[in-house]
Each structure stands twice: as structure tokens, then as C-alpha cells.
């Protein structure tokens, strides 16, 4: 009688320990636990950009290395494709000519999304001039291999194609620099940037490219 009793108790104890672990296990970790990052629905979507007639969309890199659309307000008429007020601290901005054929900020929005070559040239020139003071304060910058503002020569626009002619060697441009040029030209030429852009330099031309930053349908959730 003794022996089974003395042998039974440790077994009971083991069972008890097991059951307690099973039972108390779910309670381990009271209170609020940390989580990993959890995706929760769609992002915020708003109209952050000024109306198309009053701005030019440039593409700069954020400190994190992302290509961002940066609107720059144009409150005056185009003068030679360059909005004068947009580059107050850029003395090298060309001031060639009077408000021209495409003068008032390009065509109205209803014309199929295409804007004139002059405004595209103005956008590319503004891009090459680099970020302005407030943009630089926000940490926006151009790719180092992007040439100066004076190299923009002319824009040849076709149907869904844009040629940007530069007085520089386009082969030397790094991929980020090309992206900046391509995107700026594409969004200047088309509302949604849906054109292919060919960079033409002094030594030749690059294959046509499209802007990697394209508008996407907003996720429903």
C-alpha cells in the first residue's frame, strides 16, 4: 500500500505541473503587447498639388533616396518657358523672349493632357537649376550628375513621345539623374506622365524611357 502511494504522488505532481503550465500559458503576457508593423487599409489620398495651370511639377530626391513629385507655384505667365517668379535665387535663369505662343502656363487642362513644348522646356530648365531654398530646407536634392540649367536646348514633342535635347553628354548621366529628367519632362508634357521620353545629347541619344513614378489607382482598403 505504501509503495504505490509514494510512487503515485510525484506522478500527480508532474501532472499538476503540466496542467498548470497548459492553463497558465495563455495568461502569460498580461496587458498590452507590442506588435510588429501592421498594414491597415489605404493611405490618405488628397489633392496636394496646386492646379495644373499654376504650377510646374519637378522631380527631386528625398533624403531617403525617393523620387518625389515637387510642385513649384507659377503665379506669373510663362516667359520663355521659365516661370520667372519660381526661380528667384537663380540668376542663371534664361530670360529669353516675351510671353510666347504657349505663354499662359500651357494649354488648358481639357486638351488631352498634352502641354506645349515650351512649358516642358521651362520645367526641364527649372529642374536643372536645382531645388530652391525652401525645397533644399526640406532636404530635397538632385542627383549629382545632373548638369546645370543652361544645358537645356529644346524639346521635341510628338504623339506620346517627347525628346529632350540637352547640350551635354547624356551618356554620363546616372540612372537617378535620367529618372529626374524623364519624369519631369513626362509630367510636364502629359498630365499623368504617360509618355516615353528620349534624352538626346551632343554625342547621341538614349533609348526612350518612361517615368518610374506613375500614378496608381488608390487601394480601396
Amino acid at each position, binding site marked *: *500500500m505504501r509503495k504505490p*502511494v509514494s510512487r*503515485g*504522488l510525484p506522478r*500527480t505532481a508532474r*501532472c*499538476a505541473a503540466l*496542467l*498548470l503550465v*497548459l*492553463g*497558465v*500559458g*495563455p*495568461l502569460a503576457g*498580461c*496587458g*498590452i*503587447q*507590442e*506588435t*510588429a*508593423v*501592421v*498594414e*491597415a*487599409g*489605404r*493611405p*490618405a*489620398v*488628397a*489633392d*496636394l*498639388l*496646386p492646379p495644373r495651370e499654376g504650377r510646374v511639377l519637378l522631380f527631386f530626391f*528625398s*533624403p531617403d533616396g*525617393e523620387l*518625389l*513629385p*515637387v*510642385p513649384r*507655384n507659377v503665379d506669373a505667365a510663362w516667359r520663355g518657358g521659365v516661370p520667372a517668379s519660381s526661380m528667384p535665387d537663380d540668376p542663371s535663369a534664361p530670360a529669353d523672349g516675351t510671353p510666347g505662343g504657349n505663354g499662359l502656363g500651357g494649354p488648358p*487642362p481639357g486638351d488631352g493632357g498634352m502641354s506645349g513644348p515650351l512649358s516642358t522646356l521651362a520645367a526641364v530648365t527649372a529642374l536643372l537649376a536645382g531645388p530652391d531654398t*525652401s*525645397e533644399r*530646407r*526640406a*532636404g530635397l536634392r538632385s542627383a549629382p550628375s545632373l548638369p546645370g540649367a543652361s544645358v537645356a536646348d529644346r524639346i521635341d514633342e510628338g504623339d506620346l513621345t517627347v525628346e529632350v535635347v540637352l547640350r551635354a553628354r547624356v551618356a554620363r548621366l546616372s540612372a537617378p539623374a535620367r529618372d529626374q529628367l524623364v519624369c519631369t519632362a513626362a*509630367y510636364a508634357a502629359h*498630365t*499623368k*506622365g504617360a509618355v516615353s521620353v528620349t534624352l538626346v545629347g551632343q554625342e547621341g541619344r538614349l533609348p526612350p524611357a518612361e517615368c518610374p*513614378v*506613375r*500614378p*496608381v489607382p*488608390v*487601394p480601396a482598403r
Partner: protein
Amino acid sequence: MTAAFGLRTRLVIAFLLVAAVSAVTTAALTYREARSALLVRAQDTAVASFREEVEQFVPGLPLDPESLRWDLYAIAARAKPHPWIVFAEYGSLRASSGDRPVSGVLTAELRRTALTSPHGSFERVVKDGKAYLTIAMPVMTRVVAGGDALPSGLVLFAVMPMTNEEGDIDALVTAARDGALPGLAVALVPALLAARSVLRPVRALRRAAQSMGGGQLDTRIPVHGRDEMADLARTFNDSAARLERSVQELRDAGVRARRFASDVSHELRTPLAGMLAVTDVVDEDAGTLDPETARAVRLISLETGRLAVLVEDLMEISRFDARAAELVADEVDAAEAVRSTLSGRQWLGRVRAELPGGLRIRLDPRRFDVVVANLVGNALRHGGEPVTVRLSAREGVLITEVRDSGPGIAAEALPHLFDRFYKADAARSRSSGSGLGLAITAENVHLHGGTIRAENAPGGGALFTVELPFEGPASWCGAPDGPGSARGGDRTEATS
């Protein structure tokens, strides 16, 4: 008692364990579900309302830091479900609705996710023991009204302390604990009841087994219900009944056998008495017969006498078996008693007697005479002379030793010396003894409450030692019908 306590303890512990496990598991699962629901609701509300407020109040690009801060104030003022602090990050620009432009709670992982994934996201962070819900809301901008959108690079973060949720969850824990502990206490009651219902039949079984061991073979257990305990009780009762029946049959058989022996001896006694009378007469006239007939007549006479002795011994043994032997105790001088026995049988010349005087003892003189006569006669017949009889006293007992100078007793014969009809030497089977002499001697000694043993003396020869208490058989006589006689016999054999 310890076994019963152990069983009860184990039953109660097992019961409580089961109750504890179920209570704790239920409480834990409920708690987890409730906590999860609580947190999910708070998070979903916060994320949805933060997105809504951001879409309503987000400043346009290019950012003006001053107006941006006012917009952040506006978003912070509409915090739901709890107050939050809003942080904005655009490039290297940092702004917030609080005192510091950058939060210490936001993790790098959340920032990275906000910049790379086109989704809102949240992360629960515990910092300094306080839980925060941090929400990252990347802002996308439409390029045309109502159409597709581009990532703008602007990310708004909300940091919301989850103080209320912590309070609610603590309340949940308290509720779970307060529910589980009384549950355990309540479970103690059925545990004790169950233990009692199991232990009661066990105790009854133990008592019954004890009483059976004590000789109460008619012990039975009341059988209740149809459970395993009832089965056990039924089995116990059946076994007890069978045991009782077997024992009763054995007893009856023993009684029948003894009565038969007694009856046979009684029946033989009367014709034998007649035969003895005839043989006495014939014996006297044997001289006048021719030698052949005379020898035959003497043989008949001798054997008839031996048969008479055998019948007397059988009747004596039957009386012992039937516990009908009576002790007529008297206070006598031991030396006198022995001397009269020896002289009565004309042995005084053949036996060396060492009989110190003054040993007064209570005993039945007739039975003591039988004991001494049997032992001395045995020694004279089977042992070798000289035979010594010595009396001594030690520790309240009278010691009577009878020693012969013969070859002693064979070792294998020693344990059976006092058995009935046991003959140590097969060659002596035709001796004058009935084969019951030593058995009757032992019964007589036991009747006095004494012991008898036989051994081979160191100097050769057999030595029989009888020890009788001086106070007489009084202490032993109190239970003349008890098993003392049989036990005394066993003891004798064990010591011999």
C-alpha cells in the same frame, strides 16, 4: 489512517486541479478574446479617423512649415478615440502638434513601411511600461481630380497613448482572477463530497477485512448502488461467504473425526474389559496347557493388554481434543510427587534422582504423574541407563529434566517426537508403547501452561525438559477452550 488521508488528499487535489485548469483556461481564453477585441476596435477606430482627418486637413504642396503646424493642430484636435499627437515628415522636414517635432516612440520600421508601402499602417509600442498606438499615414496626391494618385513623400504619424485600453485590460485581468478564485473555492465542496463518497466504502472494507482477520468470518459489507465500489463490496462478501463455508466444513470434518475416534474407543472399551477378564483367567491356567497353546494364550493376553492401553490413551487424547480434559490442581511438593511416581513403578533403583526439597507447586498430581512416568518409562525403554531425573527452579518455573545415557534421538526425529503415533525407530514399531505416550505427555504439560522440549544432551543421551509455572495453570486456565492448547503444541514443536 494515513492511507485514507492520502487518498482523500489526492482526490481533492485532482478535483481542484481539473477545476483550476478549466477555470484558468476559460478565463485566459476569454481574456485574450476580450483584449484582442478591445485593442482591435481602438486601433481600427484610430486608424480610420486619423485617415479621415488627414485627408480633410492635409496641407498642400509645396509645404509651408507654419501652415503645416496649424493643420497638424487641427488634426490633433479631432483625435478619436483618444488624444493623439500628430507628427509630419516630409523629406528632412519635421513638424508636430506637440512640443517636440520628432517623437521618440515612432520606430524606424514604421517609417520605412510608410515610405515604401502604399498603405496606412500601425504599430503598438511599449515604451517605459506604457503602451502607445503609433499610426503612419502616407499621403498620396492625385494628379488629376478624382483619378490616380502619386506618393507625395509626406507622411503623417499619430502617437496615441493607450492608457484607457490598459485600464480596461487590467480590469479584465481582475475580473478573470476574481471569477476563477471563487470558482476554485466552490469546486472544493464537490471535491470533498466525492472524496467522502469514495472513502466511505473503502473504510467499510478495511473494517470488514480487519474483523475477518480477527476471526469474525460472518462479516459482510452493505452494498449500495452499482458502481465499482459496490462491485468490490459484492466480491468481498462473496469471498467472505466462501471462506466461511470452507472453514465451517473443515471444522465440521475435524469435529466428526474426533468424535469418531472417541466413539470407537468407547465402543472398544467394553468388549476389551470383558476380554481382559477372560485373558487374566486363561493366563493363570496357562501353566496347565501344553507349551504351544500356553504361548499362544500368553500372546493373546499380552496383545489384549496392549490394546487396552491403546484404547485408554486414545480416549485420553480424545478428551484433550474435545477440550474435555480437566485439571484438578493441588499444591504439592514436587520432589514428593516425583518420588512417589518412581516408587509406584519400582523404578527407584534404576533411576538416579536429584530431588531438592521445598519446591511447592500447584499442579494436578495425577497428570504430573503421567508426565514423569511417560518420560522416565520412555528413557528406560528406548534410552540407556543410567536415567537421571532432576528438579530445579528458575524464574517462576519448575524445571523437570529426564536424561538417559542412550544413543540420543536422530536429528530428523526431533521435530516429530511429540506427534501422535510417531515412532523414532521403525525397528521399534512393535514396542510396548501405544505411540501416544509423548503426545499425551505434551498435552498434559500444556494443560498446566508449561512447555516441553526434547534435545540431545551435550554428553550424549536424550534430554527431555519440562517447565511448569509455580503458580499453577491459573493464568492459563482462564481460557481452557481457547486455541491455547493447539498453540502450546506448536510452540513445543518449534522449540524441540
